[in-house]
């Protein structure tokens, strides 16, 4: 509990610093005050990519090791990832309405692919809620977690593959297209959101452990005894 409080404390401090930098950085000459939304929009989507990558890692590890902690990691990461994808979509739409003149452009592959990513992981959460047995739940969602992550690089590189409304990456190997003050503010927010992600993950994993423990207490005598199944018989 203390560990989680410390993590949330760190997240609060770094987020406050990030917000202060975001509001003290000069506004963009063309976008005006709306350019400050980049300090929430970019870190949110960075966190979503990280979260879905962690889900894929947890899923692969579960398929190899079959340990419940990998399933808890994958499931918790999806929930945080979906939350931050939603925040990224909403902030992007607010910014788009002000700067592009439209909140949603169907011809833009970044918008469409991000929305698709959001719905795929909503499907992942729906699948988890539909399965009762914890092992079956972990196995099915691990398979989906591995398949679903394929679209994450597609979302990231969609702005390079199809040139439409959404601009390409501002930070590239050959340097940044942003002024230093805006860049520093955004990077501090990326770090702050990452700390927040770690704190949310730690809290969610603790809740999952508590839920599992509570379910275990509700078990009746004989629940642990299962009839033999052909799939478990060796030398088939």
């Amino acid at each position: 509990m203390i560990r989680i409080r410390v993590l949330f404390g760190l997240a609060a401090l770094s987020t406050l610093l990030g917000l202060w930098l975001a509001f003290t950085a000069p506004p963009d000459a063309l976008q005006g005050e709306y350019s400050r939304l980049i300090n929430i929009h970019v870190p949110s989507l960075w966190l979503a990519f990280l979260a879905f990558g962690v889900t894929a890692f947890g899923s692969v590890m579960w398929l190899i090791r079959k340990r419940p902690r990998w399933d808890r990691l994958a499931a918790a990461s999806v929930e945080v990832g979906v939350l931050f994808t939603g925040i990224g979509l909403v902030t992007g739409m607010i910014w788009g309405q002000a700067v592009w003149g439209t909140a949603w452009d169907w011809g833009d592959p970044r918008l469409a692919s991000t929305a698709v990513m959001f719905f795929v992981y909503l499907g992942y959460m729906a699948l988890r809620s539909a399965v009762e047995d914890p092992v079956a739940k972990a196995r099915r969602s691990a398979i989906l977690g591995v398949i679903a992550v394929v679209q994450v690089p597609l979302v990231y590189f969609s702005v390079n593959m199809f040139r439409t409304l959404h601009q390409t990456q501002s930070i590239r190997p050959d340097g940044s297209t942003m002024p230093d003050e805006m860049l520093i503010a955004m990077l501090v927010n990326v770090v702050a959101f990452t700390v927040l992600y770690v704190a949310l993950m730690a809290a969610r994993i603790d809740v999952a452990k508590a839920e599992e423990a509570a379910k275990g207490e509700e078990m009746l005598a004989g629940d642990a005894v299962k009839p033999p199944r052909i799939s478990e018989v060796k030398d088939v």
Partner: protein
Amino acid sequence: MSFWSQAWEIARVDLSVERRVGETMRVVLPFAVVSLIVFPVALGLQVSFVAQIGPAVFWALGVLFGMQVALRQSAADSPERRDLQALVGVDPAARFVGRTISGVVLTFAFLIALFIAMVVLYGPSLPSASVPALLLSSSLFAVGLTELGTLAGEVTTGLRNRNALASLIVAPLALPLVIGASQTLEALVRDESILPWVLLMTASGLALAVAGVALARPLEEAAR
């Protein structure tokens, strides 16, 4: 039996069951054609605009009803049948490949029939090269969609809300296929190369094939 013999046998049995049940051509296809009719009626559109939106509506319905073909009830194995296949030593990867082969045949036939219905009902003006391009894009689209449907079908096997859940998983993941297939016809109309779109669908199909074969064993276990 070799891997491919097992896969062909599973595909043959699937197609025999489907020939008897007729779910694709007697249920899904008529429903899709009714949807083709509903679109212009509901939108109250002019004839020229109906012709313009025809190919787009075809691909939209193709993905929605193609999913139903991939997730058809006749291809859903009972736990007893799965146990039997495990007992006789059927390779899970061969089962995935066999199921995909039968699904591709049915989805391709469904798409061609739906396209003919769309041309008759909407009367779009298509370039002369659209027939070979349609055959190519439909076959790649059918491969990708069936692989995706087979994977989602296996992941959701035995669940009460299987069809709705599998559709929720398949529909968003099928987006690269829809983009690739619809843009192939669009590129022909604009007199541009169709190669990028064909490559997009091929890459999607290959990635799903690798995922399906690599995850065949856990998929087999997940269905139990």
